[in-house]
């Protein structure tokens, strides 16, 4: 196999001591998970804060003035919004640290989720479209999402918040490897 462009990546130092053959269901398939950027935590916290500020608080205010008979409703909306925001805020760091990707021979492996954990194994040959995209907030932190599309709608996957360079390298790697294999539905 020809040397791949990811050769110069270093393994994730935070997972250096984890034995490879641990019977942990979400252990990395090769050496280690390549974790997404920790900056994604900040992006996610900003996003949830913005949602709180722009959706829940105005909704509560409008309800307060429109429905004067239901004085208990706006505080309820606000409480739900605040609870949701606190939940996301406290779990953001761990959720981001649980997200990563790895390469196993000719498969792309993606791990994600904190409460509902999920490890997807997608052969490079089955990937039909690779997309690198980033919104204004992600771009401000120099991050990008890499999403892959396969013939199976349920198997589409996103690796969120990769550093821009890594996202582009990963995209090129996927394109190179998927050319080599060919799909064959």
């Amino acid at each position, binding site marked *: *196999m*020809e*040397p*791949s462009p*990811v*050769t110069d*990546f270093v*393994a994730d130092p935070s997972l250096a001591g984890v034995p*490879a*053959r641990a*019977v*942990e*269901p*979400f*252990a990395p*398939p*090769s*050496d280690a998970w390549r974790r997404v950027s920790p900056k994604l935590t900040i992006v996610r916290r900003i996003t949830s804060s913005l949602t709180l500020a722009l959706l829940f608080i105005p909704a509560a205010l409008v309800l307060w003035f429109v429905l004067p008979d239901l004085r208990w409703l706006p505080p309820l909306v606000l409480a739900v919004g605040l609870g949701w925001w606190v939940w996301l805020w406290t779990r953001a760091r761990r959720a981001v640290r649980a997200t990563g990707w790895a*390469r*196993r*021979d*000719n*498969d792309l492996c993606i791990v994600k*989720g904190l*409460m*509902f*954990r*999920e*490890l*997807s*194994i*997608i*052969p490079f*040959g*089955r990937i039909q479209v690779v997309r690198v995209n980033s919104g204004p907030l992600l771009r401000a932190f120099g991050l990008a999402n890499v999403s892959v599309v*396969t*013939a*199976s*709608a*349920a*198997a589409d996957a996103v690796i969120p918040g990769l550093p821009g360079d890594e996202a582009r390298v990963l995209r090129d790697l996927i394109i190179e490897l998927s050319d080599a*294999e*060919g799909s*064959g*539905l």
Partner: protein
Amino acid sequence: MTTPPDPTPGPDGRPDFAAPPPSITDASLAPPPDATTPQPLAPLSPRVSEERLHPLSPLVRGWVFVLAGGYALFSTIIQGQIRWEDVTRIGSLVEQMSGWSLALIAALLLSLGFGYWGWWTTKIVIDDNELRLENTGAFQESKRIAFSRIQSVDINQRLAARLLGLAEVTIDVGADAPTTLSFLTRTRATQMRDYLMARAHRQQVATSDTVRTASAWDDSAQGDQVLIRLHPGEIILGAVLSSELPFLLLAFLVPLGFSIWLQQPWIALGAGVLPLIIAMGGFLSKRLVGQFNYTLATTPAGIRLTRGLTTLHSQTIPAHRVQSVQISQPLLWRPLKRARLTLTVLGLKLGDDSQDLSTVYLPIGNPRQIQLALTALWPNLRLEDLRFHRTPRRARWLSPLSWSWLGYARDDQVLAVRDGWFERHQTIIPHARLQSMQISQGPLERRLRLVTVVALTGGTLTHTRIKHLEADQARGLAFGEMDLAREARSQERQAPPPTGATWHLTSPTAAESTDEAHLWTPSTSIVDPQPPSLPYQAPASPADR
């Protein structure tokens, strides 16, 4: 019902698609044993054939209006309002007619004119690599269908078309809405179907090889091998004992209860009994009419499903396009040992069996028929040879009712997964069709140290869950399955799968010997916490870091 493969290409008046290479004249029907070796193909001349649809097509498409107009004319003549002599004095007749009837006639003629304009400007062009549907009418349109993209080709004959000996050809390419050619003569439709399917199987054939006259009754032709033909009684049995009917009954028990409670018997009659009878009659007759004379056959073009009393549906699927097959058994079918087969092919929508394109592979069948239908898809698959691995005992906390049934098995061709308790399922996925695998774990599963593996195949919403496995078992399954899938795919690329033509059921006796066997013969029994033999960690070369 097997007719011997006897290709006698009769004289055909129509132009040929391609020059028939003499070396493979009988390749589609009686292939040599080494069909995979490349035949010395004659260089195909870039000959292009053009043709139009059948001239009666616009009339058949609007057959209801044509029939209504004919009936109106006929009845007025019978009633003596128009005498035949009047035809010569049509001018004065028109003056007598009211305005709306004139408008109606004008609209009818106009639509017929448009229909014929569309017919005249639409051409089917077939060249070496693709079929084109070219419309040069008001809107210029050219639709191309590459032969290699064809997923399945169906022939539908609605009642009006069937009486006139016409048929419509539906070509499904998976992604887009299927293309329909309506209408062609039955012979031409069969011929085109066989040609397209042969080309979809990457064979080089000339259409004159596949001149076969299909029967109007069940679309069977020479060279077909009928595997299963369902008796109407079986279909009624299946419909009566289906899972839908009890719910239908339940829905009408509610007004019945109300009427007893309110002591108003007319509510029971009006809201309960009469609609119930109508709904049940409709349900049963829809099933019976839709699935009447259900026939499963292997043909030179692939596996063919034919059904229908009034409208004849004939669906042909290449075996290697099947993404997965599900054997399911509703609760009430369990004592009868009957089961149903559903298949997933790209492009076919999940839907009920009355639609043109159906996912039902076998509406009801006994164990022998199930085995036969599966053998038609995967010749080496024997249900009783599968060995199902059970999940750990502690998974009972999560699936108390289905635990004894849950499990998975795999052989060199397929992965089989069992699930469900009210309606039992067994999904069979060929390794070569797997798209990707997932390992997932919810909070409850984490507490019990169990994981679920999801197998994903092409299409929407086609994921099969292999529930509650040990961690190492799951990893071995998921990663090992990806390796098997890759291997199967590369094998398939080197040696294209045989078509229905190359494959004939060699020994029907072997299938008959399973007559006594229960459908789910191998029980879900093997409990193996040991990691399977497949290595779940691939040797990582330094370049793979």
